[in-house]
């Protein structure tokens, strides 16, 4: 397997940001009320991730080490602003559905984390493919959660009514949607189920003696991702 496909495989499966690393939980929970929103958010994040990885990798020898975090943030925030305007102009319905969470892509741990841990150390082409892999992994994660929530919460898949709804007025039998799944608590419940499943897989793998990538995100206090663990601007007294 050559380097580029390896990066995509790594992002999609081995270090899937949603299911394995547990990064970027805010958008994961907030926008997955339907599969379409999940795809939209995932692809917007992918675009930002690929572009920022590319630019940061190009600039990796120019940006001084001491100001790298502010520089990364400016790069990411610029691309997020561009994506925001493109969505507002061309896909206004998605723009309305995602709302506040589009500008909040800036503080998504995945993007700064990849910039810090991969793009700032590796050549351009590999960084682009790393962005594609991670972004697609995130998209798959969001879409999967969105599908589950949409199917249980409204009986639809991608807006198509898969399960015919019950009609109490005419007494017609059918599916009674569990509305709570498209409301806030449903997001927590679905994610709880998914992480429990992930734990189970991990425990089984551990018993067989295999190594599994550890979650690096929220469960561990966010300390391991690049942008979260401290000072963005250099204070002049970082000696270590």
């Amino acid at each position, binding site marked *: 397997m050559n380097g580029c496909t390896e990066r995509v495989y790594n992002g999609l499966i081995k270090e899937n940001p949603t299911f394995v690393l*547990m990064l970027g*939980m*805010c*958008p994961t*929970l*907030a926008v997955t009320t339907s599969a379409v929103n999940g795809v939209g958010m995932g692809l917007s994040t992918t675009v930002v991730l690929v572009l920022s990885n590319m630019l940061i990798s190009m600039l990796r020898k120019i940006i001084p080490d001491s100001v790298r*975090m*502010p520089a990364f*943030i*400016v790069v990411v*925030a*610029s691309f*997020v*602003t561009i994506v*925001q*305007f493109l969505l507002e102009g061309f896909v206004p319905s998605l723009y309305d559905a995602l709302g*506040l969470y589009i*500008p*909040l892509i*800036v*503080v998504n*741990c995945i993007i*700064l984390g990849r910039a810090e841990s991969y793009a700032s150390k590796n050549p351009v082409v590999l960084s682009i493919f790393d962005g594609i892999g991670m972004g697609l992994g995130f998209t798959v994660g969001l879409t999967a959660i969105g599908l589950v929530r949409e199917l249980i919460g409204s009986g639809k898949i991608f807006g198509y009514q898969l399960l015919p709804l019950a009609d109490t007025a005419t007494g017609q039998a059918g599916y009674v949607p569990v509305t*709570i799944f498209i*409301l*806030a*608590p*449903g*997001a*927590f*419940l679905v*994610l*709880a*189920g998914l*992480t*429990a*499943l992930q*734990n*189970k897989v991990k*425990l089984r793998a551990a018993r067989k003696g295999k190594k599994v990538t550890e*979650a690096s*995100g*929220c*469960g*561990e*206090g*966010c*300390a391991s991702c690049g*942008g*979260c*663990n*401290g*000072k*963005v*601007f250099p*204070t002049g007294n970082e000696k270590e």
Partner: protein
Amino acid sequence: MKELLIIAIGSAIVNNVVLSQFLGICPFLGVSKKVETASGMGGAVIFVITIASFITSLIYKFILVPLHISYLQTIVFILVIAALVQFVEMFLKKSMPSLYNALGVYLPLITTNCAVLGVALTNVQKDYGILTGVVNGIGTSVGFAIAIVIMAGIREKIEYNDISESFQGTPIVLVTAALMSIAFFGFSGLI
């Protein structure tokens, strides 16, 4: 006055920042193991969001709007917040060591807490003025503190419970969050 009260209660309890808007999930799950640390984090968040919402409203109103560059809001806000958090940390270390000892370790974690940027952007989106913006900031951050302290209290009790193997750790915390979120729905008739 009445409007301000409605905004404050609305952002603190009815539209709780963690449980219904999903902002700041990372610290909510990560720093809620003990009530003591959770209240420290809550205090630090109240402190930072209040200052940040004031400063960002000022910048938006007196710099971005007059210069017609309000489209740069995301970039400007995130940089201002990052710089502000670090400035607050240095200031506290120098002049209020006791407060710094209580909140210091949590301050750096706040930069990427999306609730801070979220409040700044909500203030702009909803066209809040400076005073209403600050009130919204205080309300939101108090809501965060309430949620994280309650969660920490429940988690301290969960320690002693017999939970099935695969639900230990994050999953049971998420189930707890779901139940809390359902409970907070009860407030939705308040306003």
